[in-house]
């Protein structure tokens, strides 16, 4: 469906808002990656560490605007910060996160990734392929596949 810019402007003016502004109380749409993710596979790491991590399969990471429930770190409900999650070149993953992992293949040269931080500390290195697949770069070179 085509948008109707003039109608949008009229509606904004009738509500006393600048064109393009949202009515008070309207929530901006959550980013595509802000959802509940489930660990479905473990890549990388040694056989021994993958075995140690096997109970991670099925665990869920819940990313909400104001709270993170993360079985791989402590939950964060204070000073949660997603600002580092941005679209960047896949080639820069190592520069951003460090060199501890064998990077998975991404379908595009750009990907959305970054640190989730809690009170300034990094709590997880996440990369999002799309709304259906993501990666958590975890300990011992393990890459947790999230869906």
């Amino acid at each position, binding site marked *: 469906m085509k948008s109707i810019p003039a109608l949008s402007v009229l509606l904004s003016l009738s509500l006393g808002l600048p064109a393009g502004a949202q009515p008070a109380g309207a929530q901006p749409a959550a980013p595509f990656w802000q959802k509940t993710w489930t660990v479905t596979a473990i890549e990388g790491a040694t056989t*021994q560490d993958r075995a*140690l*991590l096997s109970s*991670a399969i099925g665990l869920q990471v819940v990313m909400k605007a104001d709270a993170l429930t993360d*079985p*791989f*770190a*402590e939950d964060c409900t204070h000073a949660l910060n997603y600002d580092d999650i941005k679209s960047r070149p896949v080639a820069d993953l190592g520069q*951003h*996160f*460090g*060199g*501890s992992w064998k990077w998975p293949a991404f379908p595009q040269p750009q990907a959305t990734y970054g*640190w989730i*931080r809690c009170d*300034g*500390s*990094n*709590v*997880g*290195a996440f990369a999002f392929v799309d709304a259906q697949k993501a990666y958590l*770069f*975890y*300990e*011992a*070179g393990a890459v947790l596949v999230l869906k």
Partner: protein
Amino acid sequence: MSATLAIGPGDAKIATVAKSVWDQAKGKPCTWEGHTTNGFDCSGFTMYVLQQAYPSRGLTFMTANSIFSSPNFIAVTGTPEVGDLICFRKGPEIPYDHVGIVYDTTHWIGSQSSTGVALVSLDDFFWSKKPHFFIRLVKAIS
């Protein structure tokens, strides 16, 4: 290991310095062979904290393997205390893997590959499953 592990009061000076260094380095990724607040690896963070806490000891930077066998440390046979080092083995055949500093009765601080310098629960999903032991800095005799 569980969160109910008894941990003694230990060396508050080391814990205070560890917190200060964590505050300076948090948000930065783990850096292999890093030993500044711009980025640490695990042994770099640990030795930096001990150097700051006890500059007169003349401690040098060491790898985790060297820390575990250094005469500057003794094995903790009783209750671990704040300021002790928590040492992780990779497995039976590789006796060294990771090292951090016991911060309080429920946490240690270290520089992990997945976070950089961070506070870690004694119940952490990964690290609580790894074989580990504790060592303590031998204090200078004045």
